[in-house]
């Protein structure tokens, strides 16, 4: 199977001694949906953010799609090329506050992909419809609920037609009653889109249903890697820490 993400010897340290990520190797095949679980502070988000260099790794190489960047010798233009291979959905949505829903989705199409306004607009409207936000296309983020903002965030990420979609705790900042609408949108994408996804989440049941593969992280490394059946249904046979974590989360 074609490999879409390849991480080799990835490490991230603070002050030269505190490890956030320790020597991580990871391969993600095309169209795999990978959920990353684990307790807080184990490096899940950091790993995801190293894939688009929002977080600069201390060592190791990252390949997404056709672009490889090595931490030891990377340039700004390489990093920009790497970033164009993926798109990220953020915990706090991070919509551009000076732009409407439609303009948020159009922005990278116009500035990065140099598409015409008309073409960008038709893509934006199609994607806003897909996430059920077409009727809010002219609303500024300040006039949308968290769930609505996150759905626009998803449309914005889809717009650039990325090889890999990165979800960084997409529902953690939402009110409980709004989590469902966002998870449904992501589930729909996972089912119908031919796209590769990595998602950091605390929604174990959601990960069980949507992901084709699950990573469990602890202390800056991948402690378990397997199918949802292996990891979530039989955690005891994998590791006691995993079982402890899942028991805790499901309560």
């Amino acid at each position: 199977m074609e490999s879409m993400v390849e991480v080799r010897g990835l490490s991230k340290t603070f002050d030269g001694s505190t490890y956030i990520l320790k020597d991580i190797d990871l391969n993600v095949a095309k169209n795999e949906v990978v959920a990353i679980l684990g307790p807080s502070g184990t490096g899940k988000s950091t790993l995801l953010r190293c894939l688009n260099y929002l977080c600069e790794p201390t060592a190791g190489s990252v390949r997404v799609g056709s672009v490889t960047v090595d931490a030891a010798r990377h340039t700004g233009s390489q990093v920009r090329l790497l970033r164009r291979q993926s798109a990220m959905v953020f915990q706090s949505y991070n919509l551009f506050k000076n732009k409407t829903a439609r303009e948020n989705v159009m922005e990278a199409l116009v500035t990065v992909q140099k598409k015409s306004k008309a073409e960008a607009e038709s893509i934006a409207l199609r994607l806003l419809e897909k996430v059920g936000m077409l009727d809010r296309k002219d609303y500024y983020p300040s006039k949308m609920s968290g769930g609505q903002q996150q759905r626009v965030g998803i449309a914005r990420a889809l717009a650039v037609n990325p090889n890999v979609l990165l979800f960084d705790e997409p529902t953690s900042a939402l009110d409980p009653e709004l989590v469902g609408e966002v998870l449904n949108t992501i589930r729909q994408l996972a089912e119908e889109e031919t796209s590769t996804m990595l998602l950091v989440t605390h929604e174990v049941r959601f990960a069980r249903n949507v992901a084709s593969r699950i990573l469990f992280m602890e202390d800056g490394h991948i402690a378990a890697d397997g199918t949802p059946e292996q990891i979530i249904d039989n955690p005891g046979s994998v590791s006691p820490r995993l079982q402890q974590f899942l028991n805790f989360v499901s309560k």
Partner: protein
Amino acid sequence: MKFSWEYFFGTFPLIAEKLPVTLSLTVISAGFSLALGTVMALVNYYRVPVLTQFLKAWSSFIRGTPAVTQMFFFYYGLATVSALVLNMSPLVAVAVVMSLNMSAFVAESVRAALLSVDDGQKEAALSLGMSNFQVITRIVIPQAVRIALPPLFNDIINLFKMSSLAFLVGIRDVMGASKIESAASFRFFECYAIVMLIYWFCTIVLTFLQRRLEKRCSAIYE
């Protein structure tokens, strides 16, 4: 000596007719200090090495000394060592000092506005492959402008009042005119009451504009 309404109304136009001098000093200095202050704020925002430290010291110096002292030092002090300053017309010299002085305050207002745009939006833009230049021009600055406008208007009001220092180097602005009129007639009370009212009236107009601007700025993205 009784307050003379006749003198008051007779002299009012003589002083008010110097308002263009005061206003042009304000407008010219506002333009230069805005440009200079914005550059200084950007240097600080991007933490340009050496320049950032230099501007920090410069800003501390400007904000830590009175404008009148700066003007005397520049116009009389530097004139003894610099032919450029010696040959400078008082009007230009005052505009230079006002611009330099206010740019330090403008830089602070602009810097705070730039910092008010959260990192998350910048990360989102970068993650989509936008360049640093696109992030600052398309995402940060449009939002910073609306944050910066109200404090910048305060800076302009301060600049307007600071222009009264011009009379100290012999410029006939409204302050200079009232000093000259009062020296001739000894009607200090009337003359300075006139000039106070002129400054106050203009500041009220500016404050009114500022209020309206503030309302519009806060409404833009809502």
